[in-house]
């Protein structure tokens, strides 16, 4: 399966199989995005058995967006491409602190007041600093 190279943008490799579509959604890439996007699902991988890969022309993933990717696919490889060459490569890692969206607890005050929820990493879980409930990373997106 051959997919064209992109000139400027981001290639995200080693995404957990089946999570590629979710990664695009978290990055806000949808049918209205004007440039080329490739989503490859269940690609063979020596390390993972199966993996997803996405290529996005004209879109650059930064560390904050990488945190979002890590919530559904920790350790995904992010390659920033400029002039068809990898200019920067880094791994999606879970942050120690997250300020995103709303808390999954519907009775958390952040569900009804303006402003983002805030989560602190505690081992394999994240704790909402407001309602103090613990969540798995995948529950936050």
């Amino acid at each position, binding site marked *: 399966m051959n997919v064209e190279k992109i000139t400027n943008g981001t290639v995200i490799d080693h995404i957990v199989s089946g999570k590629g579509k979710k990664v695009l959604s978290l990055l806000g890439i949808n049918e209205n995005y004007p440039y080329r996007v490739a989503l490859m699902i269940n690609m063979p991988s020596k390390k993972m058995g199966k993996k997803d890969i996405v290529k996005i022309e004209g879109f650059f993933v930064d560390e904050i967006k990488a945190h979002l990717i890590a919530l559904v696919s920790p350790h995904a490889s992010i390659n920033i491409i400029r002039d068809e060459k990898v200019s920067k490569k880094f791994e999606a890692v879970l942050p120690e602190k997250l300020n995103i969206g709303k808390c999954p607890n519907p009775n958390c005050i952040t569900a009804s007041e303006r402003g983002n929820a805030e989560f602190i990493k505690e081992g394999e879980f994240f704790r*909402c600093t407001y309602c103090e409930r613990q969540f798995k990373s995948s529950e936050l997106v």
Partner: protein
Amino acid sequence: MIYMNIISMRDLDKKTVESIFSLAEKAEKGKLPERKGILATAFFEPSTRTKLSFQSAAERLGMKVVDFIPEVSSLQKGESFSDTVKMLDNYCDIIAIRHPKEGSARLAARLAKHPVINGGDGGNEHPTQTMIDLYTIKKEKGKLDGLNIVFFGDLKHARTMRSLIYGLGMFGANMILISPKGLEAAPEIVKETKEKFGVEIIEKNEMDFTNADVVYAGRIQEERFADKYEAKKVMEQFRLKLEYLKKAKKDAIVLHPLPRLGEIGPEIDDSGHARYFEEAANAVPIRMAIIQYALEK
């Protein structure tokens, strides 16, 4: 001046809680210095003991009290919680707050310039009640570490239970949690308390008060049951009877954060075990101490 918010037991350490106990002892002896200023009570949920004891505590310290009443406030015009807190903050020196949403007290503390004390936020925390409970047990038993505390009732929904499990763990007490099936304590609280403080916590569904130093009872929340007949059966089963205390220590005490409905049999009141009214009375010195500590930290 450094203010301190009192939001969650998880924010506090043993030294802080012991400092508050020392201030409460002084308050009981009338030895706390008078202070000026205004306490705002902002209770977005019904309350008898918490609100009135905060108001009484402030008055006894020499402070004045302003009371926010949601039903006759601009909340009725759609004003947000956040804006309401910012307004209250302009009119007082310290805020005691209760709200049905979890995390409301933490948000209030982040919005206000003055200290905020959590009087209960949804099903999350009730740290001042926990300090009252710990203080009462310490007064009665002379210590907290190594005691056997039996929790009895709905441990899933009661914020008092969440806070107290953590607070007792902090002081090295062992716990037996007896609750109806489906109303067990949140597993993460039990796990966290065990791991952090190395205390023993055993969960049971049947009555077993063997060697209990303290029985801490709570209300079965009928409104949580879809099947009202099932609720009635559970409420009957989870009524604390004097015969249950036969295997407890002779000087075992029974506490309850109140209000109680039917979960404590009337024979307990005169049995020599009941301490829930003393516990409610301790709310005033403890809340005097908390106000003092929060304003002077």
